């Protein structure tokens, strides 16, 4: 699922597009999780993911603002400032961290159950686009 996502983001032609695609994925993560664990729950998971990946990607320190109602503006801005490869890798790492933290708390089976539609949607979108 992460590889699929990674390839989906890498398939974008420029960093701006990559940042847009990343934020769209995060928005769907928000839609999938916030009804179940609440906005505060998703914000906490997102911030923890950012914190964990800061050692590898120090520029993530600038992603400080909690996303209000599923808006990931500061993430979008920071991704668009990076090289495409770095931005794609960092975003994939963030998503991986989020799934991992959630999995540690509620188990991998339930985590997959909640996030699978997101991975499927974004994986499929890429495949469709690459087929064109």
């Amino acid at each position, binding site marked *: 699922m992460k590889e699929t996502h990674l390839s989906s983001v890498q398939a974008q032609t420029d960093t701006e597009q990559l940042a847009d695609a990343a934020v769209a994925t995060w928005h769907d993560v928000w839609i999938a999780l916030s*009804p*179940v664990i*609440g906005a505060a729950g998703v914000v906490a998971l997102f911030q923890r993911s950012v914190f964990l990946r800061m050692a590898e990607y120090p520029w993530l320190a600038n992603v400080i603002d909690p996303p209000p109602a599923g808006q990931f503006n500061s993430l979008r801005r920071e991704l668009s400032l990076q090289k495409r490869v770095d931005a794609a890798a960092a975003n994939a790492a963030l998503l991986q961290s989020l799934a991992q933290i959630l999995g540690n708390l*509620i*188990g991998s089976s339930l985590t997959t*159950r909640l996030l699978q539609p997101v991975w499927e949607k974004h994986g499929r979108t890429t495949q469709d686009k690459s087929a064109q």
Partner: protein
Amino acid sequence: MMNKAKINRLATGVPGFDAVLGGGLPEFSFNLLAGPPGSGKTTLAHQMMFALATPERCALYFTTLGESPLKMLRYQQQFAFFDSDQVNRSVRFISLGDDTAAGDVGSVLGRIAGEVKKYTPALVFIDSFRSVILAGEGAGISSVNLQQFILQLGILLASWNATTFLIGEYAGAGDSSPIFSVADGLIWLRQTTQRNSIVRKMEIVKMRGQATLPGLHTFRIDMEGLKVFAPTVLSAAPAPAHSLPRLQMGIPGLDQMMGGGLPRGYSLLVAGPSGSGKSILAASFLAEGARAAETGVIAAFEQRPHQARGPVVADLIASGRVGVIDTRTSTLSVDEIATLLIAEIERLGASRVVIDSLSGFELALAPTFREDFRESLARMLSALANTGVTVLMTSELEDRYYELGFSPYGTAFLTDSIIMQRYVEIDSRLERMMAVVKMRASRHSNQLRLFHIDDEGIKIDEQRGAYSGLLAGAPRRHRSRRVGRPAVSTDER
């Protein structure tokens, strides 16, 4: 003329709970599930939800400030009933935390209404309902008051045909809330601590439209979820003994003393002092059953059950002809033991049951149940009689000469038959003596018979002349049988 509204009763999937509710959960009812923190409210709600929800008629589980959804999901999935595959298919968790935090009860109601319209659930849970109310009160900005909120919620969910559970921490029945009068059902969970034991109890304070089982019912929570121990139902009087087949006791001579054996379905109390051979008699009873291709169940309440059971019973258990009730905890209720016994009887198709001993049984009970021991025991014996089994119970009895007592619990009257064992001094030896004291609606011997125990079990001795004063523990042998009425008689009533 319209027919009466038919109330469907849903099977909750919680063992014993439907019986306590009076046949299941009334469909479309608006219920309050109350109790202090840790009493099992959330677990009971989840267990019912996973049992009842289907993709067509799904369940919505609203969490509020009272319950962190991540923590709730983390811990609830440890239970066997939690099925991750049902999440977002037949079961949906919806967090109301943000709406609740804002403090406007009106907006919480709007959010619930929106989700209910979106998913048309058959079941709705709000956990915790009370924190919605407290948040509203704290913020003081509610657009609707508590009473309106409850009323509107009730109307909304009934009109959408949703069976609803509001879950809340309430300290006790003294705690008053308008919800108590609005709710169709009021289920109270309690946790009581007495001495070193904690016992969980449930009470159906109210359930409109059906007769519930009154009183407090014990329940236990393990990895399977809740198990409620519904009280056993009193049965009608047993059939007359002469029409019943007789079970053999496995002790030569004893069946004759009992008028041909123990009538099937009877309960027998074997009372006697420590070491007099009660457990050996019980073992013979089970072994004789096994010889006749019958199965049995034993509930042995001893400190070290494996050593105390003896080789005969141990072999029967090992070969699967006798089932064992696990009685190691000291927090049991009589209803729980009855439920375990009946389950084991049904599993094995057992016809003989041994409870060894009542004294140990009482010690195994949580202190809070000991006061009701006699009533509960009567109920249990009756329930066992309903299953058609024949029950042998032993009772430890101090030897009190000049006094004819059979049971320290006044349980003697509960049983259909009684065998008494005693020690007597004869020729400078401590001998054992046994008599059939009671055999309801049946002829039996009135002899006091000496017996001994060897490697093969109990052997009833040949009569060694006539004695008097056996009951006093110091018998005298009669030289002539013409002096008065003989104390030992071969007559049968």
